[in-house]
């Protein structure tokens, strides 16, 4: 590690010791893991582009940043109201990583469901947290996971007792503030879904337009037998925000995890999504849509480990890149030995709207069993010219035709979305981002109005 890189790492470690100083003693397991995280981060440093997993993603904007830690969660209620998803939901809000009770709503959860900030869960019974926390995402996973572990203190804990069904969506809202000093946060999300429990979690990243903060998230999701979890990650963070997330899902027999990774915002976004399919009948669905413009950089790395026979995975990621945006998709499916009769399908399609936009895509399959059904594919291209022609023969000008087809491309992912409020919001956002000046938003609203009749 050269001196500049060393000093970047040291800056983060100094922040850690400053922050910990003056805080009271904590349970020994937390102190030990914190220390292990710091040591691991110190040894690894930030990932450089010579490492395969980070080949296309330059994290110097993070490494060279000087990020403080927020200590309070004040946020303009008017702005919060504007940014918050307008839906009936249970809600846990964090402002720059700090829990914001005033913007949270936890009062009407059904019996059997527990949703609390990590700090409260630790205060109440730290040992109950200590078991699962860090089991899926250890400090070995990446230097960001190690860094998160060194700093971990806040986040969300969701526990569902067996058979509990939470009907309303659960929103985990992460607000990013604009300020003189950029801040960082290292939230942890821990979800333990008991047997045959069912819930929908919407993780929503959004903030004040001028914000330029760094979020380093680790999520661990444990689905017991037959549990069903739908997980939306709606990334609408400000365009200068930096975001790294490691999401691990462990699935027992017959459980079903469905992810919608909808990425519209953020200047630099890196998601690692890893599913361990450990029991027969377990199913993971990864749906993704990313829209990059300006100089946005969006990197999605996904991995599905078929560790047991008769497990299923389905992945469909679509990217739309304009201007000088850069997208990365790496999807890997690994079928372990003796994991027979598994099905793993993966597809990634990308649309480039500008000559200077770039996509690096790599679908990977590793199969060590013989009785499997797997497919993968990746396409990057332009729009279907026959469709452009068909629309023009109806009087629609070429730019609008291309806009409609781009919207349609995104629509193929959004069709799978059950929550209309989310699908419509993202579709509107995509319509609004399209480069040409035509009123597609008006069309989307018309369709929505027709739907409501």
């Amino acid at each position: 590690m050269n001196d500049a890189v060393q000093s970047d790492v040291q800056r983060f470690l100094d922040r850690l010791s400053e922050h910990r100083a003056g805080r009271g003693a904590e349970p020994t397991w937390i102190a030990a893991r914190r220390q292990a995280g710091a040591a691991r981060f110190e040894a690894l440093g930030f990932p450089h582009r010579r490492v395969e997993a980070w080949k296309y993603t330059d994290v110097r904007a993070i490494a060279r940043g000087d990020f403080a830690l927020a200590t309070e969660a004040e946020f303009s209620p008017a702005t919060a109201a504007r940014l918050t998803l307008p839906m009936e939901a249970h809600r846990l809000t964090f402002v720059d990583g700090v829990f914001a009770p005033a913007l949270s709503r936890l009062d009407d959860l059904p019996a059997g469901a527990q949703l609390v900030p990590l700090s409260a869960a630790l205060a109440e019974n730290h040992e109950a947290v200590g078991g699962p926390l860090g089991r899926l995402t250890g400090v070995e996973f990446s230097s960001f996971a190690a860094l998160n572990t060194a700093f971990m203190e806040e986040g969300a804990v969701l526990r569902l007792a067996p058979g509990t069904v939470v009907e309303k969506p659960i929103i985990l809202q992460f607000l990013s503030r604009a300020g003189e000093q950029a801040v960082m946060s290292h939230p942890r999300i821990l979800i333990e879904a008991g047997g045959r429990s069912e819930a929908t979690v919407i993780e929503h990243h959004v903030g004040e337009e001028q914000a330029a903060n760094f979020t380093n998230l680790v999520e661990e999701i444990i689905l017991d037998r037959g549990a069903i979890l739908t997980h939306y990650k709606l990334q609408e963070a400000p365009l200068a925000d930096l975001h790294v997330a490691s999401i691990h899902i462990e699935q027992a027999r017959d459980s079903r995890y469905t992810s919608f990774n909808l990425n519209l915002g953020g200047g630099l976004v890196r998601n690692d999504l890893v599913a361990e399919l450990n029991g027969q009948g377990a199913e993971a669905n990864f749906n993704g849509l990313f829209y990059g413009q300006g100089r946005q950089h969006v990197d999605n790395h996904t991995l599905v480990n078929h560790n047991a026979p008769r497990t299923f995975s389905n992945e469909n990621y679509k990217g739309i890149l304009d201007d000088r945006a850069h997208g990365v998709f790496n999807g890997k499916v690994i079928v372990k030995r003796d994991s027979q009769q598994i099905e793993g399908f993966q597809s990634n399609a990308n649309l480039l709207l500008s000559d200077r936009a770039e996509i690096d895509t790599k679908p990977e399959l590793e199969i060590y069993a013989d009785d499997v059904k797997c497919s993968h594919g990746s396409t990057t291209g332009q729009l279907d010219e026959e469709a452009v022609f068909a629309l023009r023969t109806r009087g629609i000008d070429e730019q609008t035709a291309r806009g409609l087809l781009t919207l349609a491309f995104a629509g193929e992912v959004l069709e799978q979305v059950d929550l209309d409020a989310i699908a419509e919001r993202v579709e509107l956002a995509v319509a609004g981002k399209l480069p040409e000046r035509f009123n597609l938003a008006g069309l989307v609203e018309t369709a929505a109005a027709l739907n409501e009749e």
Partner: protein
Amino acid sequence: MLEVKDLHVTVEGSEILKGLTLTINAGEVHAIMGPNGAGKSTLSAVIAGKDGYEVTKGSITFEGQDVLEMEIEERARAGLLLGFQYPVEIPGVKNIYLLKAALNAQREAQGLGEIPAPEFMKLIKEKVASMKMDTSFLQRAVNEGFSGGEKKRNEILQMLVLQPKLAMLDEIDSGLDIDAMKVVADGVNSLRAEDRAILLVTHYQRLLDYIVPDRVHVLVDGRIVKSGDAELARELESRGYDWVQEETAA
């Protein structure tokens, strides 16, 4: 309204239309019939502006305008609309988007503003009902997963909403059962008007039992070899195309 003069068209180096001349006046329904490979679909494709067709000679004018000089979308906005033999599936583009964008484009060309939402809703529902379609069709992607009959109905629905001056329908009857054909024919017949013309391109006569044309033209080997009234279509049905070919050769 439409004047095609001595039209020669080449596709990938081979000449398909070899001097086609045709005049269609407002208020008329014309049918072009002919054996496979005669160039029936080429004519409507050229008028609509499809790529890959080279006009080597002749002209097409529509209400005095040189059609061949117009952009594809300008042709449509001027009132020239083609109903496809094989309507393209456009995954993800909802029917309602297509209809509203197309209608607004046309209105803009006519110097009208965007159609107010309630007016659009009313119009669209009325037309959907008249094609015996469910309003859920509007939310579906254009032609995606539609049966053959649904696709053709959808083409007519677009005509009903856009109200073209000249509606060209390319083999609109192909792949339709009798009930679907009746619905499609009713839709086409409802388009008949003093100020509108319709051009049907068809291989079979049966469609013409439901949409009775004013003029029937027989297209053989890139040229119109015979024209007549609706009676000619029936004669073709009973005697086949060979008869016309022999007659003209003689």
